[in-house]
């Protein structure tokens, strides 16, 4: 039968749209419900983060990193702190390392809760989202107690952390770990293996291994495509080599390897691994010692040169590249962030052809972008 050719309809999805996870604009060309091409337009949340850094002291840049990936501020703080510490050769006290691991993994769970909660929401499941958000609220209470802020913490400083914690706080973290485990099982029952959910998420937005590598996928997106690569395991920074945890990868158990369901499931499983890490860290930590011991008074000792450090944030591999010229009261000559969500977003154009409008939302939700980090 001869195909009837119709004109394509151009639809702007965003920047004001409930499911573009912020201010992303997608230009969709559709033939009815079938998407012919999808072009993301960025920059609606561009705040010149990297340029601002060039006129700021290294310690003052830390609050700016909060505002990049605002859902995982701790991990961003840490990525930047790692870069400066490497440059200056600072040894961080062990207590601070443990604290960093605990708060970052807590923040990773909070970030993944947003990821799979809103993914469910994109598919139309409202209840799991709110059940998960109850847990996120508990995490925020804990992080607020530790750092004083609920979302933008400015907690992990170069050389240490901003505030000390008490042993009661550690007990509360332990309590959270216990309360989280049944909830994630409940989410599995309610959402992960729900037949409608599986039929919506499986076999949609398939990213094979080679494509994932070509487009610079990292983090849960890459692992969802079946590649076992986690910087915490493969290139351990800080004290991650002390912990015993698994790296969950997608297996295509409900559909094809690398589909949206695999990426979603990777995040669900990763939160369980994070709980494992936190529990081990709670056992290993000792509260003696000064947290400010290694925090530099000033950055006059900053050498001339450049550094690139990568670390594993909830969205993937965040790289911080700093060029320093040294000198008195130094500021970075250039600061560049390799943003995992930005790279992941680039695949949309490639895999969007031929899917339905509803699937675009699902794919976008499954690669878990945060526009603050994409645009910086």
């Amino acid at each position: 039968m001869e195909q009837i050719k119709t004109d394509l309809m151009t639809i702007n999805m965003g920047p004001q749209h409930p499911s573009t996870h912020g201010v992303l604009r997608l230009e969709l060309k559709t033939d009815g419900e079938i998407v012919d091409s999808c072009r993301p337009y960025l920059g609606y949340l561009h705040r010149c983060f990297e340029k601002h850094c060039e006129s700021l002291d290294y310690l003052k840049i830390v609050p700016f990193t909060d505002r990049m990936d605002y859902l995982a501020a701790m991990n961003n703080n840490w990525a930047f702190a790692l870069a400066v510490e490497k440059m200056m050769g600072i040894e961080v006290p062990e207590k601070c390392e443990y604290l960093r691991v605990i708060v970052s993994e807590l923040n990773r769970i909070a970030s993944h809760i947003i990821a799979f909660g809103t993914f469910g929401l994109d598919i139309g499941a409202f209840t799991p989202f709110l059940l998960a958000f109850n847990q996120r609220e508990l995490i925020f209470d804990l992080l607020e107690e530790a750092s004083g802020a609920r979302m933008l913490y400015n907690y992990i400083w170069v050389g240490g952390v901003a505030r000390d914690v008490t042993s009661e706080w550690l007990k509360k973290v332990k309590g959270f770990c216990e309360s989280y485990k049944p909830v994630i099982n409940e989410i599995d029952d309610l959402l992960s293996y729900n037949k409608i959910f599986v039929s919506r998420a499986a076999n949609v937005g398939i990213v094979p291994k080679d494509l994932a590598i070509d487009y610079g996928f990292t983090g849960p997106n890459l692992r969802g495509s079946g590649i076992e690569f986690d910087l915490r395991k493969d290139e351990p920074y800080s004290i991650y080599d002390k912990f015993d945890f698994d790296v969950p990868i997608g297996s295509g158990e409900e559909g094809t390897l690398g589909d949206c369901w695999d990426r979603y499931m990777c995040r669900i499983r990763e939160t369980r691994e994070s709980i494992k890490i936190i529990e081990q860290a709670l056992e290993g930590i000792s509260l003696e010692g000064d947290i400010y011991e290694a925090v530099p008074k000033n950055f006059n000792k900053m050498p001339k040169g450049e550094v690139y450090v990568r670390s594993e944030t909830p969205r993937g591999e965040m790289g911080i590249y700093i060029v320093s010229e040294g000198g008195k009261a130094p500021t970075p000559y250039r600061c560049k962030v390799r943003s995992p969500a930005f790279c992941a977003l680039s695949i949309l154009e490639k895999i969007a052809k031929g899917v339905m409008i509803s699937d675009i939302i699902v794919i976008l939700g499954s690669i878990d972008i945060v526009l603050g980090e994409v645009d910086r």
Partner: protein
Amino acid sequence: MDNIFLWIAITLGAMVGLVSVVGIVSIYLERKISAFMQDRLGPMEVGFGSLVNAIAGKEVLREGRIGLAQSLADGLKLLQKEDIIPDGADKFLFKLAPMIVFAGTFSTFAALPLAEYFIPADVNIGLFYILAISSFGVSGILMAGWSSNNKWGLLGSLRSTAQMVSYEIPVGVSLVSIVMLTGTLSMKGIVVAQEGWFWNWHLFGAVGHHGLIGFVLLPMMVINFIAYFIGSLAETNRAPFDIPEAESELVAGYHTEYTGMRFAIFFLAEYGAIFVGNAIAVALFLGGWYSGIPAIDQANIPGIAPLVFILKTFVLIFVVMWIRWTLPRLRVDQLMTLCWKYLIPFTLFTFFSVAIYKVFIV
């Protein structure tokens, strides 16, 4: 003549009251039930006292404990909103659309058999009338999407039309089986056929008509009921079939551009349609105004019939809400697959089974 006009006025008044009350109560229930399922509180602040104070311009105290007047207060708020009509809109159709959608729902209330003595219009083709009029609303939805000059609205209305037209078939066929059994299209006649104990309900076969042999039809009728229930969910655009207004995909679907009272009318019509859809299920499958136990029927307790009917309907509405807050949404092609590949063959199968039963067994 006077009497006729009086009768029309009373009936219309009662119907308007019923539709509004049903809409407002359903919206309130939806909020409370969803809150209960999602570990939230739902509306807590607005009681009737605080609402009266707010209207009178007095100081508003926190009087409400369970937010009983929340839907009323929302209605009042929507009344005061600016009525915005987009520049590029087809103004006539834009204004007409909510009226048609509401009229489609409102008119169906005329033939709902709330009790033997309370059917506003007991026409002999009651069921046919309800099915015909309720599908009439879809043209209003199509108008709304087309006239608002919004691509999301257009997509939403196209989805809605495709969905409603498809799901008419399983709904219609599943109801035709009942009509074959009872031999009448009158809503009253269909309900009266299920008098007595609950096993006389059509859900359990045709016991009320032909005695014990009627149990042969039990599986058929259960399939019919499930098919009808799924179909009515889809026809009223409820989750998991709420793709026409899928808020995560199409912003708000066909009513994206509507504000204020026009939006409220769509909203009210939606809840009215849910009531009608489930009321038909109650009347045709679940014994209508009969409680299922002869001791507590109209004959013994006067005035209980409408209460029984409304209670049964709200139990079904609760199930509808339960489904909505539990399940994710289907994709548009999966929705069509469900209808054409599963529901229609199943209902056709039951249709022929009932026909064979009717011709060869009894």
